[in-house]
């Protein structure tokens, strides 16, 4: 089990190439049989007639990193997973770009999928991160998670 801490926050969007690199790094871990990846992508929601063009993320970073770690430890205790990685954007992420990357790996698929859902739900509910939905005219609203 890989449990080393790593920094979760990434400045700006999470790129497909970053995701490919993360996947490629697991080819040496040959006890893995299934990976599950969840990606959060910024939607072009229309709010009061104005279209979202980006989300500007901010966080209470010290508390968030501690919380991410607590959630990771809980998931390792609860599910038989071999690897787990979480990345979250900070700063501006445009619509169509990726702001959350949750990557779980296990010997058998069931555990990786269940752990992924568990992580995503806890991240959305418990981690002190805020998104400001920015419109074309530079006005904004504070995002609400549903």
């Amino acid at each position: 089990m890989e449990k080393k801490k790593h920094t979760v926050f990434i400045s700006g969007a999470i790129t497909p190439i970053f995701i490919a690199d993360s996947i490629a790094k697991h080819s040496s871990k040959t006890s893995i049989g299934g990976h599950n990846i969840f990606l959060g992508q910024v939607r072009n929601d229309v709010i009061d007639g104005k279209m979202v063009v980006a989300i500007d993320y901010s966080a209470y970073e010290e508390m968030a990193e501690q919380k991410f770690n607590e959630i990771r430890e809980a998931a390792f205790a609860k599910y038989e997973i071999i690897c787990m990685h979480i990345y979250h954007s900070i700063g501006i992420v445009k619509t169509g770009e990726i702001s959350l990357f949750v990557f779980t790996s296990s010997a058998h698929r069931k555990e990786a999928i269940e752990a992924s859902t568990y992580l995503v739900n806890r991240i959305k509910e418990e981690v002190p991160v805020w998104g400001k939905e920015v419109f074309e005219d530079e006005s904004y609203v504070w995002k609400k998670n549903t």
Partner: protein
Amino acid sequence: MEITILVFGQIKEITGIAAWQISGIKSTEELAAKLVMQFPELALMKYAMAVNKILIQTDTELNENDTVALLPPFSGG
């Protein structure tokens, strides 16, 4: 006895600053009451409090050098 206050997101727009120190406050409820006098718009805001990075659910005693954070509803992901 001095404590540090941190505010985030929408609350930072109300207070205008992100972090400051105050003294003479003994509990989180006392702090909340003081802040709402200083920033009346806070009365309309839903927020949670964290003391030293741990969310609190009930009135909590504050000690020297504690850090209290005011956290609007999270919207990460």
